[in-house]
């Protein structure tokens, strides 16, 4: 009986390694099939940009080798994936998944995206998960939700792109349906734009000094591309402007955008300047109803949220520990059930055989007396089995059932029962 997790994450492997391990949804069933063929009763593959983890139920000895072989193949160049990997067993594996789901193991502490990724992994692997992992992932999602509702671990925006969203959300009633203009083609702006799009913001225009690059990003975001010099007029319509050009000086100046801002009729404009050096002249913030934030401002918001989240780590870990014990009690009980069933059946067969032998020797007994004797033998058996059954169940729920189970199996010659 065991649950094992084998994998790599952002702590053990650099990005260029992690991205080789990442599995597309269509690859998941095949990868699991291959690992399960090495001998395991269930498996779930959790693959995100920050981690690739195989959760396995009852893996046999050959399974870790199969996992590392599969990952090493993806790594290529004759390198071994083991050097980037880790493995955890039993309670530690359960704790690991619960911490992952709660965001305690994330690169950005408490981030909520992982909750959805755990759910997707479970749904994609449902056919191969088996009952134990099914229950484990179901409970992991509940643990994640509990941690987020009972602690402040998920509150605030703990990264610069999510801080950009948080700031915009403090200006506009709804972000859904707002229009955004992107200036420049920096990675940070693209990331922040993705965050905004996930909140329902429509990126309508992408402007860049190099038109081709603008067009490439615009196509990804279903927006229109235009040269940077044509962007200023659009400050009159956009609700959010994301700036991330590689210009060595401010490109968004008062003179360029003030006429367009004046035509907004008092509607607020949120400008998020993610470029270093800054793209937007500080004087632009003086324009009425213009809210300008640079990367330092957003990082200040993120740092505040991260500090608040760190304060809640002990509370979150406490919830995780509580839930690990709850799961383990269920799991322990699950393993005991078939062994106890077989133990009871074995004893009952002995009782029935002995009773039949006695009854053959006492043919003069009336049907009532025979019934009485049958009842007596049942009661005696129940009395004998009561205490061991209770003790075994309690020990299993407390996580101390293995020794007793093994002893029971050996003493009474029971068949091997390693799991549900």
């Amino acid at each position, binding site marked *: 009986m065991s649950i094992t997790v084998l994998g790599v994450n952002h702590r053990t492997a650099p990005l260029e390694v992690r991205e080789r391990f990442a599995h597309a949804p269509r690859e998941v069933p095949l990868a699991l099939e291959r690992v399960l063929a090495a001998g395991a009763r269930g498996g779930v593959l959790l693959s995100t940009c920050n981690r690739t983890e195989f959760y396995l139920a009852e893996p046999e000895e050959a399974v870790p080798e199969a996992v590392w072989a599969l990952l090493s193949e993806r790594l290529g160049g004759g390198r071994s994936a083991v050097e980037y990997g880790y493995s955890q067993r039993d309670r530690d594996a359960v704790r690991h998944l619960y911490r992952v789901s709660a965001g305690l193991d994330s690169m950005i502490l408490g981030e909520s995206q992982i909750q959805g990724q755990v759910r997707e992994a479970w749904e994609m692997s449902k056919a191969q998960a088996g009952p134990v992992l099914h229950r484990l992932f179901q409970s992991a999602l509940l643990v994640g939700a509990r941690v987020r509702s009972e602690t402040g671990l998920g509150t605030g925006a703990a990264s610069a792109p999510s801080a950009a969203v948080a700031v915009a959300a403090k200006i506009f*009633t709804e972000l859904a349906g707002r229009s955004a203009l992107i200036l420049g083609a920096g990675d940070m702006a693209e990331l922040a734009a993705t965050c905004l799009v996930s909140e329902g913001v429509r990126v309508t225009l992408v402007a860049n000094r190099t038109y081709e690059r603008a067009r490439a990003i615009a196509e990804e975001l279903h927006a229109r591309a235009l040269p940077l010099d044509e962007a200023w007029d659009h400050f009159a319509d956009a609700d959010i402007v994301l700036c991330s050009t590689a210009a060595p000086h401010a490109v968004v100046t008062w003179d360029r955008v003030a006429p367009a801002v004046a035509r907004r009729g008092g509607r*607020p404009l949120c400008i998020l300047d993610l470029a270093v050096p800054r793209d937007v002249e500080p004087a632009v913030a003086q324009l009425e109803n213009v809210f300008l934030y640079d990367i330092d401002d957003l990082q200040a918001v993120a740092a505040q949220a991260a500090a608040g989240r760190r304060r809640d780590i002990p509370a979150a870990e406490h919830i995780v520990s509580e839930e690990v014990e709850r799961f383990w009690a269920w799991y322990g009980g699950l393993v005991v059930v078939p062994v106890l069933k077989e133990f009871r059946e074995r004893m009952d067969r002995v009782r029935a055989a002995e009773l039949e032998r006695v009854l053959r020797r006492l043919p003069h007994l009336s049907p009532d007396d025979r019934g009485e004797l049958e009842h007596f033998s049942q009661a005696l058996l129940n009395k004998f089995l009561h205490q061991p059954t209770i003790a075994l169940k309690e020990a299993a729920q407390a996580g101390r059932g293995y020794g007793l189970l093994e002893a029971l199996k050996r003493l009474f010659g029971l068949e091997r029962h390693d799991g549900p």
Partner: protein
Amino acid sequence: MVLVPHLIALGLYALATALVVAPFAGLRPASRAVTLGVALAGIGAHLVGVAQLAPFRGVAPTLSLLALFLVLLQVVNEAAFRASAVGLFTGPLATGLIGLALLIGLAPEVAFPSARGPWSVLHITVSVLGLAMLALAFIAAALYLLQFRELKTKRFGQVFRLFPPLERLDQLNHLSLVLGFPTVTLGVLLGFGVRYAGGASVDAAQVVWGMLTWLVLGWAVGVRVVRHWAGRRAAFASIASFAAVLLVYLALKLTAPGTQRFL
């Protein structure tokens, strides 16, 4: 039986206010259901008390009615706009108004004949509801300016985290002002009708100052609706108009005490 429901309402409003203030003091926020439940329980008790105060003659009954409308509007606002921070103002204000009413004494003053009929009760109720709406517009405008300053100066403190978005506060201000102005107007017209129907004259100073206040309020609504002011300018206009209402009331109270008015 007027006192007990008011005392219960006072306690529940104070509790609801504490629940709204708690997150600003760094405490874990209570759920919306709990905060709303406490406020609604307070409203229930308050309704029982207020029903016995008709025809609302005198300062104390009117203050109690005003407190009731403020909390009712807060609950509506919470449901429609989710601007809980408005409770930072409406909560203490309503609690204070009930406390003041209790201190003054809730027994209705002796009403002149025309002030006893249903039209008078309607006049007072509509006028107080209009006042409560204007007060809500004022509160939304004040919160808007606080959040505006927080966002412009990039402080990212409790106000930034716990206040609603700027646009929502602007919408709340707009709606409260646009609904409050005609409500107050209707209340005033009903008041004139009640007075003239009862054969009582209206003090000239009251008419002049009242008209002036109405014009200031009309201006604040006009710039929003006709000239499409929004944001900070509209917030200032809303605050100015409500300040005008308060100043005129205080001026009339000081210069012409005892004149027949419900407040």
